[in-house]
C-alpha cells in the first residue's frame, strides 16, 4: 500500500517485525502493541534505529503515554472506514499528550477520510488505493473553512468571524 507523507508518496523506511521474528540489528522497525508491551524498555532502548508501534483502536492510548517521547511512529488502525475510534486516539495523542512523532493512519484509509484524519492529527497515511494516494494533495484542498477547532491549528469559523469583526472595527 502506498505511503503518503508530507503530501508525497514515499518509500516506507519501517520494517514490520512480526511478534515472533528476531529484531533486525539495523533500521527502523514497526512492532505490534503486544510485542511492545511485552518488553517496552528493551525496544525503546534499541540502538539500531527508530521504533514504531501499531496501536489497536480498542485499547486506551494511556498505556502508550509513558513511552511517547521515545517513539518515532505510532500507527493507528482503521479496521473499517466506518470505525472512527482512531480519530479520538489521534487527537488524544496529539492534543493531550503532546506526541510529536509520526502519526500514521493504517487499514481502510480512503481518499474521503483524508481531511478528517489531517484535522485529527495524522501526518502519514497508508492508503488502500494507489489512485487515492495520488490524489492526496488535491483532495486535502477540498475544504478551506472549518467550523470547529481541533488540534491541527486551523482556525475555526467561530474565531475567524471574530477576527474579521475586529479587523473591520479597527478600520483595517
Amino acid at each position, binding site marked *: 500500500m502506498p505511503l503518503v507523507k508530507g503530501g508525497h508518496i514515499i518509500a516506507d523506511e519501517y520494517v514490520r517485525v512480526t511478534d515472533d521474528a528476531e529484531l533486525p540489528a539495523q533500521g527502523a522497525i514497526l512492532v505490534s502493541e503486544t510485542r511492545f508491551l511485552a518488553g517496552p524498555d528493551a525496544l525503546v532502548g534499541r540502538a539500531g534505529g527508530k521504533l514504531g508501534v501499531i496501536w489497536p483502536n480498542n485499547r486506551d492510548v494511556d498505556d502508550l503515554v509513558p513511552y511517547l517521547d521515545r517513539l518515532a511512529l505510532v500507527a493507528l488502525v482503521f479496521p473499517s472506514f466506518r470505525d472512527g475510534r482512531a480519530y*479520538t486516539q489521534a*487527537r488524544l495523542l496529539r492534543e493531550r499528550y503532546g506526541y510529536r512523532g509520526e502519526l500514521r493512519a493504517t487499514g481502510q484509509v480512503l481518499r474521503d477520510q483524508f481531511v478528517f484524519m489531517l484535522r485529527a492529527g495524522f501526518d502519514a497515511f497508508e492508503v488502500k488505493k494507489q489512485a487515492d494516494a495520488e490524489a492526496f494533495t488535491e483532495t486535502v484542498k477540498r475544504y478551506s473553512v472549518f*467550523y*470547529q477547532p481541533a488540534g491541527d491549528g486551523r482556525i475555526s469559523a467561530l474565531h475567524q468571524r471574530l477576527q474579521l469583526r475586529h479587523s473591520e472595527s479597527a478600520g483595517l
Partner: protein
Amino acid sequence: MYAYDDIDRTLVNERVAEFRDQVKRRLSGELSEDEFKMLRLQNGVYLQLHAYMYRIAIPYGTLASNQLRRLAHVARRYDRGYGHFTTRQNIQFNWIKLAELPDAMADLAEVGIQSMQTSGNNMRNVTADQWAGVAPGEVEDPRIWAELLRQFTTLHPEFSFLPRKFKIAITASEHDRAAIKIHDIGLRLLKNEQGETGFEVLVGGGLGRSPFIAKTIKPFVHGHDILSYVEAILRVYNQYGRRDNIYKARIKILVHELGIEKFAAEVEEEWQQIREGVLKLDEGIVEDIRSRFFYPAYETQPAMPDELKQAAHDPKFEAWRKNSVFPHKQQGYAIAVVSLKPVGKPPGDATADQMDALADIADKYSFGEIRVGHEQNLALPHVKKRDLPAVWKALEAIGLAIPNVNLVSDIIACPGLDYCSLANARSIPIAQEITRRFANHDTANLIGRLHINISGCINACGHHHVGHIGILGVEKNNEEFYQITIGGRADEGAELGTLIGPAVPYAEVADVVEDIVEAYLALRARPEELFVDTVKRLGVEPFRERVYATR
C-alpha cells in the same frame, strides 16, 4: 432567521463539489457501492425500495420563504412534485436520481440549505422547539445555541464515524415541543441563580428496538461550557460505544450498560481535561452568532383587532382559529400552525404548489418565515392577529386550513412499506384510514388532544412508543400485523406506552383505534381529562378489555 455568511457559504459549496466528485467516482465504478454508501449517507442520500431518497436538514426547524420556494423547485425539477416533512425537522424527496443529486444539492446551497449528516452514523441535524423565539414564557431563544451546536457538529474531525447515529434536541420552554427526552442528548435551557444561561443535559434517550427515556447527566452546564461538555460525551461514546451489534450501538445502550452514574463519571473526567480548552465559548462568540439571527420588527397591535371579531361569526374560521392558532410572545401576534394532515392523505406531505403558495403567504403575513415541527406540521410564526382571517382564506385556497392540530387525525407516521426498505408493514394507509374514520371535526374536537404515532418497523421512525396511541407494524407469516400501545408521550412528562395485547391484522387497526377512543370517551372523568391522563389514572386494563372482548 440565521443568515449565512461567506464562511458558511464557502463550506456548503465545498461540500457540494466534494459530493459531485464522489458521485462521479461512483458512476465511473471507481468507488464500490459499499464505499459510496457511507459517503452518500453522510449527505442524506438513502437507497429505498424504488429509488434514492434525499433528506435535507432544516436546522432547528426555521425556514425562510425563499428556501421553501427552492424546496418546491427541487420537488418539481428533480422529484415528483412533492416532499415529505419528517419528525426531525427534515424534508425528504423520494424519487430522486443519483446523477442529478449534485445539481439538486447545488440549487439548495444557493439559498443556504444543505443535507450534511442527515443520515449515517454521525451527529444529525440539531433540532429545537419549532416555536423558538416566539413562544410566550420562553427563557431565551434556544436557536442561538442550536446554531452553535450545528456548526460544532458539522464535519467534525473526530465524530463523523460514530458507532451509530447521534441526535441532539434543545428546548427553552417549560412545555417540551422538541421531544428532548427521546434524543441521544437533550438540552433544556435554563438560568442559574446568577441569571446565567446554561443547560440541564439529558443523555441516552431514544426509541427503536430498545426504547429509553433520557436521564439527566448534569443538572446545569454553563452555556460557555456546552460545546466542551457535548464533546466529552461524544468522546466517551466514540471510544466505548458498542460497534459489534448495530442494535446495541446507540449511546442509550452504553448509558444503560454502564449505568448513568458510571457514565456520568467517565464524561466528567474527560470534561475536566478539556473544559478550559479551545471549545470554551466567550461572550463575543455567542454574541456574534446571536447578531446573525434576524428578528421581525413587530408593530404595536391590538390584542383583539376588529378583523378577528368580525371573522368570529364564520364557524369555519372559528374552528380553524380555535384549533390551529396559538399565543405569541408579542401582543397582537399569533402563531398559526399549518396542518399537513388532510383526511386521506399521507401525513407530512406537501406539494410543490403548496410550498410555493405557503412561501407567498409567509412573505405577506409572517415576515417571510416558516417553521417545521416534529409533528410533521408547519407553522407561520409571526402572524398579526388582524391578518388571521386572510391567512385562513389563503390556506383554504391551497387545502391547508385543516383544523386538526393535536387531534386524533394529526397523525405522525413514517413512510413505511410504501417507500422504505426497512419496513415490515405499511404506515401511510393506516394513517389515511384513521383520518377517514375521524374526519368529522366535531367528533375529533369532542375527543380532544390525542396523538397517534405509527411506525412501519421496530426502528420507530414514527415514534410509536411515545404516541398516546402507538401503532407498530410487524410481520407475521408474511402478513402485516400491528402492535398497539397506549399511554406514551414525548413531552416533558415523556413516557413509553404500554402494549394492550396481541397484535392485530392490518384490516382491524382502525377498528381497534375506534374501540380505544370509545372506551376513553366512556371512561374519562370529565371532558377536559386528556386521553393520556385517563390511561395514566386507570391503566391499560379497561382498554384491553374493550378491545379484546370481541376479538
